[in-house]
């Protein structure tokens, strides 16, 4: 197998005439937390959605170049985007569990529809496993049949993590997962990242250099659609090569 979980080759993305990602070459190692940071509007969410072909929901978005998932170009014509999305899970900026499905069904739905469990017992086990992985099991095990509306923001977000993990993806994309939850919830999610990178490659989008410094192994700095600098978290924060990067990590650039 390839040593890189995700690799992009001259990736360009535009919405209509507006080129948002301007030729990015990126390599993300396996089993790391890779933080993609940059100021608001620089194209982080857009780029992330190219990694699971979710961008296709937007009819205006055009992707050029290649995205390799463990060495395989997910944009080659014979690849089914649905398969890609099973292998690449996603957690969003706003916690978005399905409000009309129970906690149990929120985790089970992907499994059920993709027939990834042979029977009810296997499904139950997988749901429990995912919730345990997402550090939510103890908090919800007695109310699996409830709707997620009573959960806190942080709990909802961990439920979304469980929903993604249940599919046993290889890569987990997280688009500012803590942007809309409180500090306690944020801490829980950040702790979770350490556990999860044992088994998964995590690409974490954040606009907070502090968060990137806390949780990531490697960092990429995206600015106006261009990847300015990539490196180990230590290097990027202690001796950035690019002036823009330095300005960004010291908080001068917003």
């Amino acid at each position, binding site marked *: 197998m390839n040593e890189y979980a995700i690799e992009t080759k001259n990736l360009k993305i535009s919405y209509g005439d507006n080129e948002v990602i301007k030729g990015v070459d990126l390599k993300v190692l396996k089993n790391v937390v890779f933080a993609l940071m940059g100021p608001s509007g620089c194209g982080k969410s857009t780029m992330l959605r190219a990694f699971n072909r979710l961008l296709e*929901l937007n009819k205006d978005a055009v992707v050029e170049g290649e995205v390799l998932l463990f060495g395989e170009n997910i944009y080659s014509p014979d690849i089914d985007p649905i398969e890609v999305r099973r292998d690449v*899970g*996603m957690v969003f900026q706003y916690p*978005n569990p399905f*409000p009309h499905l129970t906690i149990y069904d929120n985790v089970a739905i992907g499994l059920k529809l993709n027939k990834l469990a042979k029977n009810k017992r296997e499904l139950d086990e997988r749901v429990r496993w995912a919730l345990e992985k997402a550090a939510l099991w103890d908090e919800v095990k007695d109310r699996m049949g409830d709707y997620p509306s009573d959960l806190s923001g942080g709990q909802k977000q961990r439920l979304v993590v469980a929903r993604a993990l249940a599919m046993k993806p290889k890569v987990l994309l997280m688009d500012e997962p803590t942007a809309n939850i409180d500090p306690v919830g944020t801490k829980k999610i950040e702790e979770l990242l350490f556990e999860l990178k044992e088994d998964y490659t995590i690409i974490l989008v954040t606009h907070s250099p502090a968060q990137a410094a806390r949780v990531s192994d490697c960092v990429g700095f995206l600015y106006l659609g261009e990847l300015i600098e990539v490196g180990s978290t230590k290097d990027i924060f202690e001796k950035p090569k690019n002036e823009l990067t330095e300005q960004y990590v010291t908080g001068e650039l917003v």
Partner: protein
Amino acid sequence: MAQKISEKVSEILGKIKTCMGFQKKGNKVDSFKLITSPAVLFVLALFAGMLIVYFYNAMPAFNREGLSVYLKDVWRAVENPSEEYYGLASAIWGSIYTSMIAILVALPLSIAYSIFVVDYAPKRIKNTLIITSDVMAGLPTIIYGIWGAFVLVPFLKDYVMTPLHRYLSFIPIFSYPPITGFSYFSAGILLGIMVTPFASAIIREAYQMTPFAYREAAFSVGMTRYEATKVMLGYIKPAMFSGVILAFGRAIGETVAVSLVIGNTFNLSANLFAPGYTISSLIANQFGNAFIYSHMLPVLYAAGLALFFIGLLVNSAGLYLLRRWEKNVSI
């Protein structure tokens, strides 16, 4: 002394105003509220007044026949007043039966229409489609009635009812021979077509407004477009529910179009192809006779009252369920 009295008066007035909610915290009169309140009272009074008028005028029928006026299926309009006897059971049944058929037609149509308009229709024709259905919702119902009687009924009779009856007449609901085509079935289908624009307006609106975040979530766990659509339809269930309630309310109250296609026959049968009556078509048809026969008018009022209560029941049941559902899944 005089000053004291005026003080007292303004104090009392103030209290009244606060009680009625006319006065805001800042001691300022909310004049808009002051102006609109009589309108609200007027509407409420009208509602109560109408109910009372109906009750009052239906009373002779209740006195004469008791509740059996709703439960019996007879319509004996004869010269001799002492032999007159009326029962509304078949009309009540017809109303409910045809409205249910209408829902069965309108719901899938509206859902399919909404999905098409929102997800598939090219931008160019999207607005045309929306406007068309809004116009259809506003058409005078007699237009549907005439079209129904001269186009829809013959078509249904030749291409749907006759084959169904020929091959499936062992199933009780298909056993009545569709001789004229005027039937519960025709009325239900026509009603379904008529209420589809209403139901679909609500469902379409809700479907259009489903947060993109949930769509993304659905696709992100490897759902196909079909599966994601199904999940999103689950999300707008309350809207579908309101759509159904609204459609049912319109269907059950529809008069002219139904009178033209249902056959206007006293009949209490689940046979889809049998002619029947609905409450409103009965009132419209028998209205002239009510001046000839001594005891008929109160019965027609009683029929109106039944319609009133069915509407009330359906709507409040709908609201109750909707509230409960919304409370459970509020975001």
